[in-house]
């Protein structure tokens, strides 16, 4: 009697294989019925072998101490991001809301000394010194900065974010946004509109007059209206705006309109007619007024996800016109920086890339939270800035989905079957894939005060993400050759020697 021979099997189903490297090796397995994923592989970390190994050693891995920790930390970071509920509470002077006192000025981006600052930031600082009355002329203001008479610190170190130069001085009114889910607060100045504005480094009389009007009229008026209306839910407002063609960074017309619609009755009720008319005229004429609110909302959400040991989630991306800096949830106050480039984009008539300042501002906080360039699918109207089509807009959002941990159901994108915005940038995925975050951005003239000369998109430089992985691995006691002796032995590979470096 014969029995059917048992067919040998190592795997329960038809073979599923990933091909990493030579494309020809994908052909034969596929011809024999294997399901193949043939990777478009390239060396991770732009070919830095050490960072590539660090990355591999901090991959999610339930069977490994470090892999478990990083996976759990990132899950926690994502859940905090998705739970965020930013509410606009008030508009108060920075001195009051943020405790910004003495001769301290805040600027956008990672830390930078006065002598390294770019033109627009230096101009904005001169303007802020004049606005505060610490000097009587531009020359005096520069001399004061030269002599070390002013402290400079990043907005990000003070729970604040600022577009472009991002300069905040104590008397400037700032929006106070609180993430009700975590209690984190974030602040931002009021948006000045386009043309000659401080954030592009202009400081003539019209700029300083506007800042004074903000301080004396706009700030107090908005504050009174907000006290009457109660907190405004910025998550819900942003969610609606994303379905109306905004992406929350370079297009804010829908969100600004919704905001004005909500607040206008309360402005009228809480101030005199002439003041109300002045304030409403200003808001009506500034399509970008909501940008600063959007930024503060994102900052309040990201700060709640910051400081989780082991997490590789990016909690800030920011530029000061010289350096591009990022922070990771798991690496505390460290900044990881790379030189910043000029964005690709379209220029206003008479200007070109040679006039452009390298990318500038804290506004990439919106992309860090998954809107802006990450939500390009919501805003086909502005995809022209990248010379693209509506299909390209969808592709940008999909691409960003490959470097993020999840989707934000509060920010549904109709054009992608109501998928949420890609949220929770994982620095590991950026470094592994070489897919750089997309940032929608305005382009500043390199000279102070000329203003915006174009708009476009920038890709974050990959180098700072690789440095971030290096920094995170160090906090976990991981070297390219494995876990260091100082750390408890990892569950795997502990018996092995180093990796030959």
């Amino acid at each position: 009697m014969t029995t059917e021979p048992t067919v040998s099997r190592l795997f329960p189903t038809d073979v599923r294989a990933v091909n990493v490297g030579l494309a020809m090796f994908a052909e034969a397995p596929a011809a024999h019925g294997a399901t193949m994923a043939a990777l478009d592989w390239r060396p991770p970390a732009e070919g830095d072998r050490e960072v590539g190994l660090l990355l591999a050693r901090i991959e999610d891995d339930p069977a490994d101490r470090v892999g478990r920790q990083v996976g759990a930390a990132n899950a926690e970071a994502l859940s905090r991001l998705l739970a965020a509920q930013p509410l606009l509470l008030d508009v108060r002077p920075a001195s009051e809301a943020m405790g910004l006192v003495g001769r301290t000025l805040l600027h956008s981006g990672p830390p930078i000394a006065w002598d390294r600052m770019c033109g627009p930031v230096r101009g904005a600082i001169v303007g802020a010194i004049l606005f505060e009355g610490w000097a009587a002329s531009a020359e005096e203001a520069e001399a004061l900065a030269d002599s070390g008479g002013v402290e400079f610190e990043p907005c990000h170190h003070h729970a604040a974010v600022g577009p472009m130069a991002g300069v905040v001085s104590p008397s400037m009114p700032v929006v106070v946004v609180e993430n009700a889910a975590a209690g984190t607060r974030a602040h931002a100045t009021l948006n000045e509109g386009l043309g000659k504005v401080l954030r592009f480094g202009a400081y003539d009389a019209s700029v300083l007059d506007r800042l004074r009007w903000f301080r004396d009229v706009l700030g107090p008026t908005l504050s009174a209206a907000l006290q009457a209306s109660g907190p405004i839910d910025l998550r819900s407002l942003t969610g609606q705006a994303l379905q109306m063609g905004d992406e929350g960074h370079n297009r804010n017309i829908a969100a600004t309109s919704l905001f004005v619609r909500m607040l206008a009755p309360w402005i009228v009720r809480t101030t005199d007619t002439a003041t109300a008319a002045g304030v409403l005229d200003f808001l009506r004429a500034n399509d970008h007024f909501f940008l600063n609110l959007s930024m503060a909302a994102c900052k309040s959400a990201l700060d709640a996800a910051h400081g989780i040991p082991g997490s590789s989630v990016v909690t800030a991306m920011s530029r000061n016109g010289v350096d591009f800096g990022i922070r990771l949830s798991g690496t505390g106050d460290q900044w990881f920086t790379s030189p910043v480039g000029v964005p690709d984009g379209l220029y206003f008539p008479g200007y070109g890339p040679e006039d452009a300042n390298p990318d500038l501002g804290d506004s990439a906080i919106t992309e860090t939270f998954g809107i802006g360039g990450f939500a390009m699918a919501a805003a086909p109207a502005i995809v022209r800035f990248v010379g693209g089509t509506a299909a390209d807009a969808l592709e940008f959002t999909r691409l960003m989905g490959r470097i993020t941990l999840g989707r934000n159901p509060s920010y549904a994108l109709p054009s992608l079957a109501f998928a949420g915005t890609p949220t929770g940038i994982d620095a590991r995925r950026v470094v592994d894939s070489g897919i750089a975050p997309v940032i929608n951005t305005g382009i500043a003239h390199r000279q102070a005060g000329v203003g915006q000369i174009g708009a476009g998109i920038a890709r974050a430089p990959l180098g700072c993400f690789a440095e971030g992985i290096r920094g995170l691995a160090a906090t976990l006691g991981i070297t390219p050759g494995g876990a260091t002796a100082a750390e408890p032995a990892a569950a795997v590979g502990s018996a092995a020697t180093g990796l030959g470096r």
Partner: protein
Amino acid sequence: MTVHARVFRNSYRDSVELMRIAAEIEGLGGITRAGLVMATPANREVLTEAGLLAEAALDAGPNDLVVAVAADDDGAANIALDRAAERLSGTEEGPTAGETRTSWRTIAEGVADLGGADVALISTPGTYATAEAFKALKRGVNVFLFSDNVPIEDEIELKSLAVSRDLLLMGPDCGTAILDGVPLGFANAVRRGDIGLIGASGTGLQQVSCLIDRAGAGVSQAIGVGGRDLDARVGGTMMLAALRRLDADPGTRVIVLISKPPAEAVARLVLEAAGSLKTPVVVNFLGGDPAVVRASGLIPARTFEAAADTAAALSRGEAISDDGTVGAPVDDDPFGSAREVAGPAIASLQPGQWRIRGLFAGGSLSGEAKLVLGWALGAEAAKAHEVLDLGDDEYTVGRPHPMIDPRLRNEHIVAAADDPSTAVILLDVVLGYGAHVDPAGALVRAIRDARQRAAQAGRSLAVVASVCGTDADPQDRSRQEAILAAAGVILAPSNAQAAGIAASIAAAATSRTEEHPRHTAIGAAP
């Protein structure tokens, strides 16, 4: 009838989208009515009128999204609410027609796209291969590591990680494997069967698998372990793991081990492990001592062909005899059967032609050829001949491997023809996936060229070759053999037999060359 609701605080969604989801969950079994609304005062009234304002939704406000269902029972309600939550979380649908899905870049993406993977084929430059292998193993994926130049310390750590996860780490520098009938790397299209192969050598595995196929048997699995696995530092980790795997596989009834002779301690470990299995194991430690193998209760085989024939006999159910052999006597001395084939070639050689020039693409095949020449001619005499492994790093720096690109070997063939002492050119022709599309065709051009140059110098050349492949291979073994035969190449059914024929020619030519000077001297005397 029961009414359930779930509230998504501060989640705005357009009403059109909400109605679409409501319609979808209303269509689920056990659901009589469903409503998804932003809980504005007006919408709350709608819910109340519909009898859907469940207790859970009583405190919902205008910024809150309410999902409410009237259901036959709690189970149906929960299924519907879960489905709504899933739809609201917005899992993106795949690309629609006309859109291009960008190809994945990372193992993480590839594995996710496949919904889990069984094996990763890694052939990146060696400097990046370790990191890629780690990523695959950490995702529970077996690794076929083709890359070379991977530090041995990395190999040790990767294999220890693989063993702790019950995964295979095949390599580094692993040329071939066949898993569940799927060929990886440079593999041949061989019949499936019940013989499991484990090899530390690429072309050795290929040769054994092809000869098993020719013998009418088939391969269950072929697992490469990398050339350094039986190094004392690696300790045969993966060969031991593969032995356990195949012993546990009900579809594998015979196991063949293939390697260069391992470090002594490792050999002991491997043989001991193999000896304790319930599956019979044929061992081909090329050039190793058969007595040691026999002492462990295993079946030694001197050549790849002997290993294949013995395994095939076991697969057919033939018994192991007391002296450890199986089935009909295996031709372990190819030298004997070679004489008649070699005869005509010997006759046409000129005096002074005595030397074998072995030009190999396969490293293990060149190793086996050297051994056979040693057995046939005696170790000392064999040293005078030349057997080159042209796939060795020494020759492949900055050039493709000769299994892919025939040019390097062709140059050597022509150069060998210019040497007046060359009597025999001995070749391997390796077919299969990844190999050159027509290696025989590429070779015969060089062979004709070589013959012509030799003829101009008044000499003829014997060319002996074996084809490592099957008729099912993309290059078709029969077709390749026909091309070679038409060019006057002496064909052997195996690499060992080809070496035997070459040895036979060389032995005859050498004795003639030694006699010849005396003839000349005598002839010239008068």
